[in-house]
């Protein structure tokens, strides 16, 4: 069964088309990596899935149900969790208040705090600090905490590793793998293929708003290398 499915989805900003009929499937319990160069439409794809961006035509299905036009807050309450690119936090709230906001997804504050502080002890030290004054990496940890603490069914991650220390990237991806083992389906966007291919079950390549390629990470690597060596 596919937890998330795109059927011929088109999307645009104003009158500029960005997605030209995307077909994409995220099978339940798997990690799918969405790769592609700058400006390919990866962020837009995730925004569409989270309900933040309207679909021009085509269907977005979550667990088999069509969800076109559903408000982002409704999708969030039903277990779809997007960690946006850049800062996915509220800079003028304290860390603890940021965690409090996560409880809208239907978990208690104490559960959120327990989970977040266990994964990222740094956040516990900083719980009274305004989130906007934390370092870039600390903010990313706080953002990621929502994905872990609210136990979503589908996790959408946008450029998770941007600006993070290698050791933390490594740690985050081991967390991603672990979360996936617990049954959460994950769609993760990265520009650097090498970092995600290790944890992904499937990879799709998006170029100029079209899915150019889908396959297992090994196939993708293989194909790409073969093309060079053979050519």
């Amino acid at each position, binding site marked *: 069964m596919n937890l998330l499915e795109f059927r011929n989805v088109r999307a645009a900003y104003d009158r500029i088309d960005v997605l030209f009929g995307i077909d994409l499937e995220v099978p339940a319990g798997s990690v799918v990596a969405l790769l592609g160069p700058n400006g390919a439409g990866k962020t837009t794809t995730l925004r569409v899935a989270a309900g*933040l961006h309207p679909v021009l035509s085509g269907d977005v299905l979550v667990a088999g149900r069509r969800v076109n036009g559903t408000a982002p807050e409704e999708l969030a309450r039903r277990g779809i969790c997007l960690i946006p690119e850049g800062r996915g936090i*509220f800079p003028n*709230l304290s860390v603890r208040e940021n965690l409090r*906001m996560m409880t809208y997804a239907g978990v208690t504050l104490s559960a959120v705090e327990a989970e977040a502080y266990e994964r990222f002890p740094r956040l516990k030290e900083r719980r009274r600090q305004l989130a906007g004054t934390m370092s870039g990496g600390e903010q990313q940890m706080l953002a990621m905490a929502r994905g872990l603490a609210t136990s979503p069914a589908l996790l959408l991650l946008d450029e998770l590793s941007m600006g993070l220390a290698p050791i933390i990237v490594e740690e985050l991806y081991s967390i991603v793998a672990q979360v996936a083992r617990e049954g959460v389906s994950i769609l993760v966007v990265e*520009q650097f293929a090498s970092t995600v291919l290790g944890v992904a079950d499937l990879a799709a390549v998006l170029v100029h708003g079209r899915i150019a390629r889908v396959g297992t990470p090994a196939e993708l690597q293989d194909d790409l290398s073969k093309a060079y*060596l053979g050519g």
Partner: protein
Amino acid sequence: MDKFLTFTIVGLSLAAIYAVIASGLVLTFTTTGIFNFAHGAAGMLAAFTYWQLRFEWGWPVPVCLVLILGVMAPLFGVLLEVVVMRGLRGTTDTVKLVVSISLLLFMIGLAQLIWPPGVSRPMSKFFQTSTPINLGPTTITWHQAITIMVAIVAAIGLRLVLTRFRFGIAMRAAVDDPSLSALNGARPNRISMLAWALGTALAALGGILIAPNVTLDAPSLSLLIVSAYAAAIFGRLRSLPLTFLGAIVLGLTEGYLTGYLPQNQYLPGLRIASPALLLFLVLLVLPNPRLRGRMTRSREFFPMPSIRGTLVFGGVVIVGGVVLATTLSTPDQLTYGRLFPIGIIALSLVPLVGFAGQISLCQLSFAGIGGLVMAHLGHGGDPVALIWAVLISAAVGALIALPALRLSGIYLALGTAAFATILDRWIFTLPKFSVFGWFNVDLFTQGSINVDPLTAFGKTFNSAASQIVIGAIFFALVAFLVVMIRRGRLGRRLIAMKDSEAACATLGMNLFGTKLLVFSISAGIAGLGGALYAMQLTSIQSGNFDLVNSLQVFALSVVGGIGAVGGALFAGISLYVVLPVIGVLFPTVVRWVGLLPGATGIGLGRDPNGAVSQMRDGFAPLAGSPSSLLVMTLTLAALYGIRLIDAIDNWTFVGGLVIVPLVASVIATVSAASKERMLAQLEDAPDRTPMEWIGIDRPWTTEDLATLDLALGTSELELHGPA
């Protein structure tokens, strides 16, 4: 001692009212990111409604209170949110400010429409007939006691709401990032409606408490709360405890001023201006803000003006001035002619607000200074006085800028508003005084002062017609100057500074000097506009240059489009052509005309780039079609010729002026569209894939893989060598 205690209590109960109003302001600011200038006006409307229900219709107090505070005010807040405020997400401070200022003007207009001014509407205080509570040496009335209690309860309640309750936290979160709060599962629209409902209810509470202490008058009640603003600034618009403290300081100061200020002819104005003075002082003692980095991305965009376009614009303005001068009767010339000097004052906002992002609400005060200089130094219409008007206004502008420059955004707006108030309530009303005994100043001699018309080239331009043409010429020149600023070094620097002061400083830019410069330039232009305005009015008084006028010009310039010179013309035309014309055409709705400036500003959220940019888009096809342009110009010229020989009257003429460009534009649009269709048919490719996609439709090739691989970096770059 008794006197001291009595005034302490007066001060404290005043403080309590300020605290209620100011905490409402802080609430709306922290939960919506909007500094609501109309907050006081909402309180004013509530006070009037309360008067209506309680004293006019004699309903019982509890019913009135529940109805207003529990039902009407919250509903009004929700209405505001849905109709006006929701559109303001992602707009600049300037746009938000204008919308709330427009709302203020609109509400004052509305109140005056429903409750015509000039009627006495007494209100009694709560428990007025009960004996005051005895506090030993003095007493405290029930009204005062209730006010103080309400303030304390409101302060504690709000603090709890904002930090302990999840919906309070969600309100603050929505200011930071509404879409992220939706991703969290909060419902941003509902939460923002709640915030406005709560804020408006607090405003209403403050309004009802303060109204019995003063006369029920719409403008003064709406602006009375400047002191409340000062208290909110004390708390930097965020901290409720500090706001409370600020309210106490301000309330007590005002109380003691009432009790102890000596009586003399120079000081009554000071008392009236004291809230503004305090606001100014509070702004001065605020700690220096850290250098501001880049803020959230805004939807604002003003394209670079071209020289050719500006020359055409200037030409059209001058021709327009000549047309006005030759077709209008003298009284009409006096009315409509003001559009140019006011337009110049609006132009002064373009570099300051549009380019540099610094908000000033005291441009009319600079204009007033220009007007005074013209009146005092321009005897016999000496043109040199115009230069003095520019220089002296610029100097005063720089002087104001010195303390105000540390501020930015909303703080600067309030600082300049306070300055405007101090000037028009106090300085401009001063009787003759002397500075250190060697310099006599007598600003507006007996309330008004005469200004001589300009004399140059041995000719005195005293007719209204010649004044219009002069005004148009100056407007065109200043517009050109402003465009040159935008296109040059200074313009880039100003826009850069608006975007990121931190980046500018680390590049070595002198921020202070740059701000000082743009403030002086702007004040100088406003001074010039003021001098020309004064000559047109022939006699000026302080009321011509007060804060409300500044607010109107500011609001309409932003509505027109503050980043472009066209916006300034728009402001002039709407204030001095469209409004009077509507008044003449539809005398029955003349009472509603007061609502218009406010109403136009309220719609700004739809397109923060302003009306002129919309019009420009609308007329774009016309500009691209020389033949239509030529035909239109000729038709207009012919129309003007017919008007000159009096074959048609002014109304027909104006109708023609409006209709001909519209028709021309429609024709140009249609012909452009058909041309495009023809081109499309000529192309043989049935599906018009843009060039850059063509490669994508091909089967996947090795080359594509190489490009992709390069972008993704999935394999070693060395492989690209001739393997």
